[in-house]
C-alpha cells in the first residue's frame, strides 16, 4: 500500500448519527491526487452524508479525516474550502439572481473585482478546460448543464484540488454526461483528486479508477474498477445477488382513455413550457415519460390535473375535454395525480397531519353537511398500513416524521385506494432505496393489470425501459417521439431527449 502521504483524503472510522438513525457507521475512504474514486451505494446508504462531512456541512461524531496527510477537523464549509475541498451538490448551490461571475466570486477571499476583470478571468479559466459559459448570464436563466458548469468553475477558480460531485449525471442528457466525464478526466490529468457519488453502475465502470461501496451506512469494500463488473458491484451494493430486472406484465385491454391534442402550456413567466404536445394514454399499460428534468413534465402533470391552465389544445378523457375543468371535477372523474415534486411533502400530502388527515384530502367534502367524517379515512389508513407495510407509530403521527419510503407509500396508497382510471406519477421512486422502489414498481404493475392507465414520469432511463410499455420522450416542452419500450434502444431515446432523431411511432 502506498504511504499515507500520497492520499489527498483519508477517512478512517467516520461515524455520524442523526437522532437514533446511524447514517454512517465506521466508514473508511481514501482518494489520491490524480485519481477518480466512485462512491457507490443505494439511496439512503450514507454517501451524501459522508461527503457532507468532507465539505463541512455536517460534523462527524467520531473518526478521523486526513487531508494531504494532515489530520484535520472540518467544522464549516469555510474550513473545507481552505483545505482545497470543493463540492458540487446534487441540488446546485447557486444564487439564482447572481450572474455566473458573481456566483464564482462570492465567498472567495480578496477584494471584489470590477465586473470587467472578473468576466475576463472567468472566460480564461473556462477556456483552459474546454468549457463555455456566458459570464453575465444569471443563474435562473441557465439550463441545468450550464449551472453545473458554473459549479465546476467555482471549484477551479478557487484552485481547489479535491473535487466531490454528488450524483452529477442525474440531471444531464447522455451526451452532456459524456462531456462532463471528458472534463473530469482532464482534471484528473491535471492532478485533481475526484470523488463522484453515483448509483449508476455503468457510469462507475466508465469513469472511475477505484470504487468504494457503502450499504446501509456501513463500509463494504473498495475495489479496483478494472477488476470488477456490474454483477459484482450490484452484489456488493445490495448485499445479495439480485436480478435488477423489473417485472413487465403484458398490457391488458389497451383502449385510449386520455387523448392529448396539440396541448400548449405557458409558465407563469410567460415562456412556453409545453408546445403542441399530442399523445395518447391507454388503459392497462404503463406510459413512461423520459426527458431531462424541466422539459415540461411538471407542467404536463399539472395541466392534466387541472392545476395550471392550457394555452391551447385539448385533453380528451373519454372524448370529454378536461381543459378548463377545476381540479375537483377532474378528481371526481377518476383522473388521479400522484405527483411527487422535489419536496415530497410540499404537495400531495399535508406534512403536519397524520395519515388519517391525509387520507381524506381529496374526499373530505363528499359526505353531506358541514362536518368532516374521519372514520372512513381512519379505516382506510389502517388498512393501508397493513397492506403496504407502512412503518409509523400510529395513523395520527404527522407524516412529516415518517421516512421517505413510507411517505411515498402513503401518497401512492391513497391514490390507489381511490380506484383511479388514470394514475399519473412523477418521480415516484426518487430518494427511495431498492426495496421500496420495487414495492412501488409492483404497485404500479398491479394497477396496470387492473386496467388502470398509468403514466410514469421517470428520470432513470434503465428503469423506464424496463417498466414501461411505451415511452414518450420530451425535450424543451415538445414530444419528440413515442417508442415501444420493448424494442427501442437506449441510444434512440437519448437522441430523442435532445430533440434529434425522426419521429418514431409505436
Amino acid at each position: 500500500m502506498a504511504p499515507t502521504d500520497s492520499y489527498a483524503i483519508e477517512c478512517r472510522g467516520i461515524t455520524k448519527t442523526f437522532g437514533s438513525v446511524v447514517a454512517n457507521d465506521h466508514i473508511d475512504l481514501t482518494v489520491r491526487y490524480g485519481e477518480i474514486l466512485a462512491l457507490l451505494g443505494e439511496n439512503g446508504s450514507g454517501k451524501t452524508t459522508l461527503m457532507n462531512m468532507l465539505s463541512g456541512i455536517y460534523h462527524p461524531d467520531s473518526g478521523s479525516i486526513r487531508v494531504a496527510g494532515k489530520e484535520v477537523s472540518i467544522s464549516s464549509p469555510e474550513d473545507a474550502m481552505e483545505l482545497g475541498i470543493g463540492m458540487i451538490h446534487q441540488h446546485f448551490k447557486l444564487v439564482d439572481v447572481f450572474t455566473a461571475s458573481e456566483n464564482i466570486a462570492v465567498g472567495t477571499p480578496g477584494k471584489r473585482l470590477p465586473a470587467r476583470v472578473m468576466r475576463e478571468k472567468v472566460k480564461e479559466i473556462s477556456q483552459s478546460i474546454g468549457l463555455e459559459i456566458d459570464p453575465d448570464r444569471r443563474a435562473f436563466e441557465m439550463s441545468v448543464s450550464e449551472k453545473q458548469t458554473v459549479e465546476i468553475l467555482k471549484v477551479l477558480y478557487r484552485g481547489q484540488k479535491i473535487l466531490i460531485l454528488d450524483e452529477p449525471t442525474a440531471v444531464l442528457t447522455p451526451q452532456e454526461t459524456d462531456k462532463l466525464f471528458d472534463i473530469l478526466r482532464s482534471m484528473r490529468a491535471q492532478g485533481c483528486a475526484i470523488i463522484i457519488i453515483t448509483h449508476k453502475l455503468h457510469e462507475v465502470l466508465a469513469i472511475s479508477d477505484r470504487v468504494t461501496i457503502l450499504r446501509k451506512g456501513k463500509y463494504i469494500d473498495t475495489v479496483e474498477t478494472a477488476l470488477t463488473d456490474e454483477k459484482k458491484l450490484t452484489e456488493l451494493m445490495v448485499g445479495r445477488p439480485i436480478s435488477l430486472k423489473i417485472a413487465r406484465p403484458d398490457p391488458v385491454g389497451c383502449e385510449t382513455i386520455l387523448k392529448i391534442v396539440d396541448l400548449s402550456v405557458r409558465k407563469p413567466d410567460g415562456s412556453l413550457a409545453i408546445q403542441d404536445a399530442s399523445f395518447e394514454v391507454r388503459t392497462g399499460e404503463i406510459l413512461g415519460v423520459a426527458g431531462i428534468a424541466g422539459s415540461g413534465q411538471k407542467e404536463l402533470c399539472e395541466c392534466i390535473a387541472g392545476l395550471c391552465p392550457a394555452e391551447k389544445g385539448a385533453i380528451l378523457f373519454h372524448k370529454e375535454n378536461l381543459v378548463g375543468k377545476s381540479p375537483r371535477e377532474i378528481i371526481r372523474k377518476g383522473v388521479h395525480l400522484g405527483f411527487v415534486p422535489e419536496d415530497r411533502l410540499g404537495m400531495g400530502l399535508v406534512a403536519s397531519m397524520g395519515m388519517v388527515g391525509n387520507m381524506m384530502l381529496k374526499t373530505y367534502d363528499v359526505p353531506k353537511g358541514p362536518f368532516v367524517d374521519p372514520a372512513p379515512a381512519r379505516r382506510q389508513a389502517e388498512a393501508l398500513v397493513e397492506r403496504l407495510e407502512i412503518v409509523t407509530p400510529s395513523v395520527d403521527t404527522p407524516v412529516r416524521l415518517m421516512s421517505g419510503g413510507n411517505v411515498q407509500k402513503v401518497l401512492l396508497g391513497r391514490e390507489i385506494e381511490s380506484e383511479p382510471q388514470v394514475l399519473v406519477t412523477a418521480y415516484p421512486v426518487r430518494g427511495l432505496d431498492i426495496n421500496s422502489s420495487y414495492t412501488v414498481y409492483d404497485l404500479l404493475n398491479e394497477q396496470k393489470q387492473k386496467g388502470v392507465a398509468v403514466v410514469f414520469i421517470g428520470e432513470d432511463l434503465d428503469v423506464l425501459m424496463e417498466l414501461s410499455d411505451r415511452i414518450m420522450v420530451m425535450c424543451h416542452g415538445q414530444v419528440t417521439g413515442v417508442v415501444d419500450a420493448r424494442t427501442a434502444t437506449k441510444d434512440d431515446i437519448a437522441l430523442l431527449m435532445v430533440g434529434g432523431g425522426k419521429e418514431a411511432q409505436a
Partner: protein
Amino acid sequence: MLIKFLVAAIAASTPLLFGTVGEILSEKVGHLNLGVEGMMSIGACAGFMVGMQTDSFVLALVAAFIAGLCSALIYAVLTVTFLADQNVAGLTLTIFGIGLANFIGIFMLGSSESGTLKLPAGITAQMREISIPGLSTIPVIGPLLFSYSPFVYLGVLIAILAGLFLKKTKMGLNVQAIGHNPAAADAAGINVTRWKYTMILLGGGICGIGGAYCAMIINGGVWISNNVGGLGWIAVALVIFAKWNPWIAIGGSFVFGALRILKYYVPKSVISLPTAFYDMLPFLMTALILVISSIRKKRDLNLPGSLGVDYFREER
C-alpha cells in the same frame, strides 16, 4: 414657501431613512424584522434619557445606537439561533419595545420634579441646524443643503455608505448571497450565522438612531409616550418601495417625509381637508404602494429570496 416645504420634508424624512436603511440591512440577510417600530422606540428612549442626563449629543447617539442594537439582538438570537418564526418574533419586539419605552418614560417622569421631561439647553444647541458661514446663506441652495440638524447628514451618510457596502465590496456581495440563498452562501464558505448577526444588529442600531430623532427633535425635546407613532411600520414598507436599495431609500423617505408635513403647508383656502386625512395620508400611500408593487408582475431581482425563512444548515 416651496423651499421651506422642501427643507421641512427633508427633515421629516430623517427617522424614516434611518428605519428603512436599518431594515434593508436586516432584510438583505433574509430576516424580515417587523420589530423596527419597537427598536426605534427603545432607541428613542435610550437616546432621550442619556441625552437628558449627560447633555451630550454624541453620547445620546451612541446610547440610541447601542439600545437599538441590543433590542435587535433579542430578535437575532430568536430567529437566527433559535429558528423562531420571524413574523411573530418581530411583532413581539415591537409590542415589547413600545411598552418598554413608554414604561421607562413614565418611570422617569415620576422621578422628575417639573412633571415633564425636557432635554437641557446644551444638547438642544448641539442638535440645532448646523449653520456654515458663507454656505448656509446662499439663496435656495443654502437652506436646501446646509441648514439641517446633524441627524439629517448622518442619515444620508449612513444610507450612502450602506449602498456602497452592498454594491462595491466583496462582503456586500457575500451578504446578498446569504439573503438570496443561505445554503449556497454557506456552501461557498461564507459564515452565514456571523453575517446574519452582524447585519441584523447593525440594522437595529441604525433604527435606534432613527428613534432618537423621533424622541429628541419631533416634539421639541419634550418626552411623550408613543413618540415613534407608526414611523417604524412605514419604514418597513418603504423597504419594498426602495427595492432594497439604500440609495433609493433616501428618495423614498423624502416622499413620505413630505406627506407627513403636508398638512402644515397646504393653504386652507386652496384645499380644505380634515387634519385626520393628512395624518392618514402616509399610511394610505404606503398601502397603495404595496398594492401597486404587487401588481407589477415582473420578478424583482432585489427581493432577497430567503426573506422570512430561517436557515438551518442540516435541514435537507
